[in-house]
């Protein structure tokens, strides 16, 4: 059911993406389409979270440039593993590779390229509360640590003056499966709560102090929808497409921010990146005044030294294309597009991918 809605949106986004790049169509498609009509040109594997937007880009790019790309959304862990073993041409992950993982890659240095932004929203089921709840990072952390157990706890009540908060227990719902959504969430809680960082930490799976685990965004959302008094987190795209009620969260500048595509992109715009960055940075609790605090990049993984010159060039061209033309498809699918200046920087960075000994 959920996947059906998602794929409809994907289809719509494909139309959008191919439409917006229509001017390229005439020039690029005729020549190259016949050359690569048989088989697959590039293979990639990894994160499931950005799969809808990657699929949309891949379809649109196929119609524009005639390049067939096969992306398998097997999970970030699998993507990293396949990259290390060089069984795919590119990987994708929701959490950056650790230095240890990068050192095990058989093909040499790996570069991280952010593609879109994702955000986590805090969903809840408190029928008596009509206005969006306002929450802060430390309060969310203490709820998930089991230290705040009632909805009418003074720390929640002071943030939501006038809200009719019940005296009932807070039922904590979290993901049971390893996921990038959990990585963003625990990364944020580790950033804002020293106790969370010390006792639980950040990861795609963690040792949850309290709560019941549900599988997938749909599992968490289904659980929260049906359980009065519950709280959970899902990715922004999922919450928007399913019209869930979600909390406003206080950012580093002290403002309560509604999660949206714009406020997610604002989190990336505020990030300070040195010129030679590999973009393996966390942008949770970003400093910008309009930045939503629970946001993250998702990355493509690319070998700096491409072993196959033909594939390497095709991969670079694909990346150049989606950095220039992919924004509409991303927005249509409720992903935060990269800020314009960042896309420009990343297009320039494509030059540092070595193809067949030359740049």
């Amino acid at each position, binding site marked *: 059911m959920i996947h059906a809605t998602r794929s409809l949106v994907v289809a719509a986004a494909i139309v959008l993406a191919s439409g917006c790049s229509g001017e390229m169509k005439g020039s690029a498609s005729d020549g190259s389409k016949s050359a690569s009509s048989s088989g697959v040109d590039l293979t990639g594997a990894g994160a*499931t979270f950005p799969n809808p937007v990657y699929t949309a880009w891949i379809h649109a790019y196929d119609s524009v440039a005639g390049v067939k790309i096969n992306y398998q959304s*097997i*999970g*970030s*862990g*699998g993507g*990293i*593993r396949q990259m290390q073993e060089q069984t795919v041409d590119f990987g994708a992950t929701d959490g950056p590779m650790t230095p240890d*993982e990068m050192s095990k890659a058989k093909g040499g240095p790996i570069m991280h390229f952010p593609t879109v932004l994702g955000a986590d929203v805090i969903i809840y089921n408190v029928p008596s509360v009509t206005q969006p709840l306002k929450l802060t990072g430390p309060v969310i952390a203490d709820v998930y640590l089991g230290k705040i157990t009632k909805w009418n706890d003074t720390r929640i009540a002071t943030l939501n003056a006038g809200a009719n908060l019940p005296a009932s*227990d807070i*039922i904590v719902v979290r993901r*049971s*499966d*390893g*996921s*990038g959504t959990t990585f963003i969430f625990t990364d944020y809680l580790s950033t804002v709560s020293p106790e969370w960082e010390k006792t*639980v*930490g*950040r*990861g*795609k*799976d*963690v*040792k*949850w102090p309290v*709560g*019941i*685990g*549900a*599988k997938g965004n749909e*599992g968490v959302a*289904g*659980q929260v929808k*049906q*359980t009065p008094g519950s709280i959970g987190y899902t990715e922004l795209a999922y919450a928007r497409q399913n019209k869930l009620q979600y909390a406003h969260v206080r950012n580093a500048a002290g403002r309560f921010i509604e999660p949206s595509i714009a406020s997610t992109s604002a989190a990336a715009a505020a990030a300070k990146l040195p010129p030679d960055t590999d973009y393996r940075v966390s942008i949770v609790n970003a400093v910008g005044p309009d930045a939503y605090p629970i946001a993250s990049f998702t990355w493509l993984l690319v070998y700096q030294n491409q072993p196959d010159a033909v594939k390497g060039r095709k991969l670079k061209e694909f990346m150049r294309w989606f950095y220039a033309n992919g924004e509409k498809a991303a927005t249509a699918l409720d992903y935060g597009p990269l800020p314009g200046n960042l896309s420009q920087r990343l297009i320039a960075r494509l030059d540092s991918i070595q193809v067949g000994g030359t740049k």
Partner: protein
Amino acid sequence: MSADGSAAATTAAASSDRTDGRSLGERIVGSSVGDRAYVAIITGFAVCVPLLLAFIFIEVLLAGWPALQTFGFGFLTSATWDPVHRQFGAGPAIFGTIVTSIIALIIATPLALGVAVFLSEYAPAWMRQPVGFLVDLLAAIPSVVYGLWGIFVLIPVMREHVMPFLRDTLGLGATPFFTGPMYGNSVLAASVILAIMVLPYISAVSREVLLAVPRSQREAALALGATRWEMIQKAVLPYARSGIIGGVILGLGRALGETMAVTMLIGNSHEVSASLFAPGYTMASLIANEFAEASDDLHLSALMAVGFVLLVVTLIVNAIARWLVWRVARGPKGAP
């Protein structure tokens, strides 16, 4: 049919033996080349399966070895599963797997047996086929569909009606097994969905076994003045005992390995609680939940080790069950 054919060929060979001058022995040796090839081929097939099992066993053990070596026996008992700090213990998952499977069998066996007895002994002929078909159909429903049904129908019913009924109306809240907050997602909910899933296996096997009980067995009991119920209880069920237990084992195998529906209903929490209202975990769910995103070597190894433990637990449970069947099958078959 092929047996008849070869017998006929042998007879033909024997009768033609005197006319063409070839001895009977030659002909048999000649045809036995085919026989031997046939035996070799089917032996190969038969050996393939245990070999495959052995390879799976070795492969999973090797992959899980680093974790088993790191945590030792504690891997089986520890309740800490912390991928961030690389501490892994499968205690709650082992506990949850066994508890949910046993409760599922406790719920499903009487129901399935009732269905089977009704269909084989009481149901009018026009009812037998359609009802039997519908029960069998339960086995054809994909487990993710059971899971979704569980989330949207079973869980709310459990939370709002069944759990309060068990705890307050029946007064079972006084025991440690039905206490604590009622989230819905729980060991109990997972057991109930498992019970529904294993029911068709047990009932289908039991029905066939009951139908296979000879007519004379029934008639003898009736002739001795038994009522219909006494006939079923004293002559039919004991006769079918080992077959019924076989059906229960089939159901148990299914319950131990079931993944998707359980994952969606059990609450996926690494805890060992006496209360059936508490969330829990099973080994199959743990692997399904974490395998895709596990990138750390020790984490992956720990998941493989869980797979190995699941294999071993399944083997042990099956061995015990087979021993039970053997015990029962040796016992008296008729009325005591």
